């Protein structure tokens, strides 16, 4: 029984008609410890209905068929499994349509596997509990009601956007956070940047929250993004 649950918790259904890309995604995710099953859109829907998958990755178009229709049907039936939509269509309109149809996140091709992995982890470990009022990592504590941040006994003054940035990290401790995720979720910017402006924001935040003589709470993950050290 325990085994079933843990298997389910690591099972990802992949609906992707480009076999080579599907294969790469499978290899990468299996390397990260997930169980990946490639499936047709109909198979995936059936598995999702009986609750045998932790999440779905679906290409927007599979063999010329719009998979968003199936997704909409699933959502109407009350199936709550997290769904990541990947697509060759990159316009914001398409992104919005993907999310409206019931997708939890949307990734446009071409993407790096690190980006995909980070999104998957964020979806699987999403803290849906909106009643949370305090977020904590080590001796860093954020009070969401008071809108204050303390490290140990000392209060840290943050600008509103810095507060949101830190909150995002605190909600995803120990996870790889990509620059694209921060742009999309913290700033609501749906475009890519050719400047390292996000890095500057992170470095400013670090200067405020890091304690002298200790390793930084937020570390750079080469070629991927950043991570908040959960066990700091």
């Amino acid at each position, binding site marked *: 029984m325990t085994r079933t649950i843990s298997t389910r918790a690591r099972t990802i259904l992949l609906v992707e008609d*480009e076999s*080579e*890309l599907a294969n*790469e*995604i499978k*290899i*990468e995710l299996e*390397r990260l410890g997930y169980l990946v099953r490639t499936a047709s859109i109909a198979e995936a829907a059936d598995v999702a209905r009986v609750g045998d998958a932790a999440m779905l990755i679906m290409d927007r178009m599979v063999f010329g068929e719009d998979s968003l229709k199936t997704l909409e049907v699933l959502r109407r039936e009350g199936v709550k499994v997290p769904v990541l939509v990947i697509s*060759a*269509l*990159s*316009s*914001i*309109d398409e992104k*919005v349509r993907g999310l409206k149809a019931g997708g939890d996140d949307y990734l*446009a*091709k*071409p*993407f*790096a*596997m*690190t980006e995909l992995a980070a999104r998957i982890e964020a979806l699987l470990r999403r803290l849906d509990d909106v009643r949370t009022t305090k977020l904590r990592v080590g001796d860093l504590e954020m009070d969401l009601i008071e809108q204050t941040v303390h490290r140990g006994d000392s209060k840290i003054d943050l600008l509103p*956007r810095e507060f949101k940035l830190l909150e995002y990290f605190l909600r995803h401790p120990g996870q790889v956070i990509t620059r694209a995720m921060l742009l999309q979720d913290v*700033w609501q*910017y*749906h*475009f*890519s*940047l*050719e*400047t*390292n*402006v996000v890095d*500057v*924001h992170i*470095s*400013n935040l670090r200067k405020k929250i890091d304690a002298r003589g200790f390793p930084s709470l937020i570390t750079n993950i080469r*070629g991927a993004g950043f991570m908040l050290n959960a066990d700091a």
Partner: protein
Amino acid sequence: MLEFFRSSAVRVALAFVFVTVVATTAVFGLVYLQIRAANETRNRVILEDEAAKSVNLSVDELRYAFDLRLTHDLRRLDYAALFSADRKVMFGNIDELPAIPLDGKSHFVAASPLPGDKRLEPAVFVARTRPDGTIMLLGRSLLETLAFRRIAQNALTTGLAPMLLLALAIGAFFARRASRRLTAIHDTIAQIMKGDTHLRLPVRSRHDAIDKISRDVNLMLDEITRLLVQIKGVSDNIAHDLRSPLAVVHAQLERGLESSDDEELRSVTRQALAHIDRAMLTVAALLRLADVEYGPKSSKFRPIDLSAICTDLFEFYEPLATSKSIAMTLETKSPVQIVGDGDLMREAVSNLIGNAIKFTPENGKVSVSVAQEDGRPVVRVRDNGIGVEPGERDKIFQRFYRTASGHRVPGSGLGLSIAAAIANLHDFDLRFDDNAPGAVFEMVGRRK
């Protein structure tokens, strides 16, 4: 004015005037010649007939008849005289026998003195030797014919002047109208060449030659636009088809990097990954551009505030500017409302501000301002960085164009193209201006 006379329409008008004048003159001339010929024939017949009838009269009868003719029948004869065989005048109203054959046929004499007058006038004479050796001379002045010619000439000149003016006026009217239409066509073509490929030449329902050509040109433009879209479609398809292979190669390289301990191999792989990243960035930007340019017009057009968008982006970029010791300022007074897609506008302005910071050296200045100028919304991003060389200014909005000085700065070279496409989608113009030193990029609404 010179332009005006050079236009083909004016030339046609002038030719029209010329032909009208020639035709009218010819008609007048023909009428005159015919009347004159008829007149001359009549004169000749009368004179010859008169001479033939009078040849056998006695001298006294002749004298009587001449008197009668000259005093009572002015209409038929103007000259009548009898000369002796040695050509001395015996009686009559002419003193000298003109130099014509004495054959009873009418002859034209260019100048002969009028009776009781010193003036010389052309006339027609018939001279005939009588059985007694005397010479009888009858003649008719051509004064009447000349008077008629003068009348005809007067009519021609008085009639021709107004007609000439009328023809000129009509010609000018048609020329103006034609040149107005040509100007409209010229302006439209200029705009099409500037990139408004959806425009077409004006066609009216007259079905004249200009309309016919306009229609043909429009068909040609349709075809060119179709081909253009097809070509862009091909390049977009290439970008589209590159996505998956790029993603796959990227994944494989990442995997290779993870699984190898050979430092040399890892270093090479990392470099390859950096290149693939750049290629992916370019492909993504190219597809983004295609989306903005040819995708269905965003359904998300709603009232948005450019001031709020710029303020938000200003706060986003300020830390980056500060890290380069660039002083960044923002100038907004009141909300600047437009109808548009907020996400796209943010992207466009973000590209402009990002560029400004990218191309401005340390300790430089970047300023962002939003305002309503002459009722038009304007977003202006000004820097005092490296600017754009005069020779490159018209190329910076082209796809992939990167200035010589900007080549060292990483980027896809599509940022400005995307910004321009987004501006165009919102009925804005994206313009470059020299800030001496530095650059000013402004997005200006086309409509108030």
